[in-house]
């Protein structure tokens, strides 16, 4: 009988001690809530296009932190999905085509002689990248345009085009060399075909 009592007492004592240690650790080493929304928001492309179904990038970031899918951002594309998957320790999934396709970056251009100065596009632009006043011609500040194309639809005369940014020597990027030689022996000496250097 005494053995049982001793055993129970010892176990209770142990439980108490460990409970105290755990409780202390929980208070002392509390991890400050990581502002995960901020981190997610930092990975999103900030086009503010709304293609994800949320009004802006931050709301989508909030939605992701609450468990929404990470594959609803076409402007960010696969690389954003990968970065998000990495951050949130989720699985990499292909882009949800319901929200659109990943497309090369574009910038809005207003065909200025057709513009009637209705200011509708100015109201539509989420980043205030369109300049103009009523009855005056409008123009896009190219360096501020995120390419969200929200201005295209409201335009009553369809004078806004989404055009890819032209490649100039300044923004040109070196292509990655093709490195894996899937070649046969007679290809020896024709390396330039494989190095991706030719434009």
């Amino acid at each position, binding site marked *: 009988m005494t053995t049982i009592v001793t055993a129970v007492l010892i176990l209770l004592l142990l439980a108490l001690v460990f409970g105290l240690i755990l409780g202390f650790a929980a208070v002392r080493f509390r991890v400050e809530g990581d502002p995960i929304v901020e981190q997610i928001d930092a990975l999103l492309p*900030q086009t503010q296009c709304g293609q994800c179904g949320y009004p802006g990038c931050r709301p989508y970031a909030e939605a992701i932190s609450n468990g929404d899918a990470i594959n609803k951002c076409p402007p960010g594309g696969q690389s954003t999905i990968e970065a998000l998957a990495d951050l949130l320790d989720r699985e990499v999934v292909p882009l949800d085509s319901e929200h659109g396709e990943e497309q090369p970056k574009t910038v809005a251009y207003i065909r200025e002689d057709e513009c009637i100065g209705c200011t509708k596009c100015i109201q539509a632009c989420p980043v205030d990248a369109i300049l103009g006043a009523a009855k005056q011609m409008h123009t896009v500040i190219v360096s501020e345009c995120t390419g969200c194309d929200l201005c295209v639809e409201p335009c009553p005369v369809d004078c806004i085009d989404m055009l890819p940014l032209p490649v*100039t*020597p300044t923004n040109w*990027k070196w292509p*990655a*060399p093709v490195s894996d030689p899937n070649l046969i022996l007679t290809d020896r000496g*024709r390396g330039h075909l494989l190095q991706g*250097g030719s434009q």
Partner: protein
Amino acid sequence: MTRLYSFHGGVHPPENKRQSLGAPIRQAPLPARLILPLQQHIGKPATPLVAVGDTVLKGQKIAEPSGHVSAAIHAPSSGSITYIGLQPVPHASGLESPCIVIETDGQEQWIERQPLTDYQQLDKQALIRHIRNAGIAGLGGAGFPTDIKLNLGRDHIVNTLIINAAECEPYITADDALMRERPDEILSGIEIIAHLLQPSHILIGIEDNKPNAIKALRDAIRARKLPIDLVVVPTRYPSGGEKQLIQLLTGIEVASGSIPADVGIVCQNVGTAAAIYRAVILGEPLISRIVTLTGFALGHRQNYEVLIGTPFSVLLESAEVDRSRMFRLVMGGPMMGISIEDDRIPVIKTTNCIIAATREEMPPSPPAQPCIRCGMCEQVCPASLLPQQLFWFAKGREFDKARHHNLFDCIECGACAYVCPSNIPLVQHYRFAKSEIRNEEAEQLKAAQARERFEARQARLAREEQEKEQRRKERAEAAAREQARKKAEAEQADAGEQDPEAELKKLKTAASIARTKLKKARDALKNAQEKGLDGTDKLEATVLQLEQSAQAAEQAWQNATGVQH
């Protein structure tokens, strides 16, 4: 004699310099068209000062620098401007860029030259302005606007002036020829630089494979009073790299991310020194330079004095090119030069060499084999990097790690790719990684900017909304006060007599207004439902509410009429 230091790594590829040193510098023919890219230097492109149709004189400024880091451009010959717009330019991308095209008239008519022979009496700023106006940018290859390097202000004390005469790349002999034939121009240029910077020490670094140039310079130095040390360094690529030459001559390393001036050193190329001499003493802006034309596809391999803007094709013809044998056209040296597909592109300020190579001379590299981590690249890297690690990271797109391994200290000298037994295009991997990282950074910056603008806009909209609300409230309050006042007045007036007629009318109006409102709301709801728009539930609620209030108003009116009748 000064002590000689050493830098890590380096290679010694076949020099191939002799073939272009057989003959003296030759004047290149005047081309029919001169193509002058607005960007021939590091920094911002120049802004044109001329329009199509203008006639210009030789040496006339046709584009002025825009911004701090920029360089002016001058007409290399007299003629008329025929075109301003996109033209192929010497760039690794092979893309087009804005240029000014001059149709030459063959007159070679100079604009009035403005030499500053008494520069020692002049204000230093005026002299620097003069050099800036002459459009001089580093002629060694990088093309950094020279006036900035000379205008260091009070932030930097210049201890050592290093004149880069190493010319370490194979094939190129432009500086060598210049030193052989015009050592006095170089030394006069050095005098001007020394006057501006007041260094306590001047070093000329030259590789030991140029005995004639060394002799010519030595003789010229003896004739002057300048305290110049001519240091002969062993031939080892890339001893002519700015940082490598500084390490060779002084043993000092320029910290990553800073400039030589931070350690009290300024480096200038011999060609730049000669150009400064011409600009200051002769009053001639930078409109020509010496270009080595070499490679086994050429009949004449020698150095040419070439007007900036001369198309490559003109020079190649003049050097009797055998186009059937020409396999690769390189601007610059074989280690760092860029390959050219279109020979209509012009000579620019940084064009020191044109190699028209045959297939045997520069065969296409065989396909890349897997990296076996042999470490040869590491042995030759002048920046003491781990090229093979950088290669893995670049290939695996692990750019953070590449950065951690100091990718941006890579000077793209090509020594690693030169020795790689697996023929991996290492330099291209690094260039790719660098441009990806830069691009990523730019995008991040842009995203941050977009976020800021978006948030600012949201804030602005919210503020406007709030203000509107505020105004509406104020108006409502004012109206309420007014009404209360009127009501009080009316009550006072009504104290004795009532005006049931007026009351009735008021109620009737209220009822009809309520009815109209209800109708409008119903229409809106119907419309919304037909179009399937969002928010119909809200509208429905409104309609319900209005229905109730309309009924109430109707009731009130009817009650009133009932009471009266």
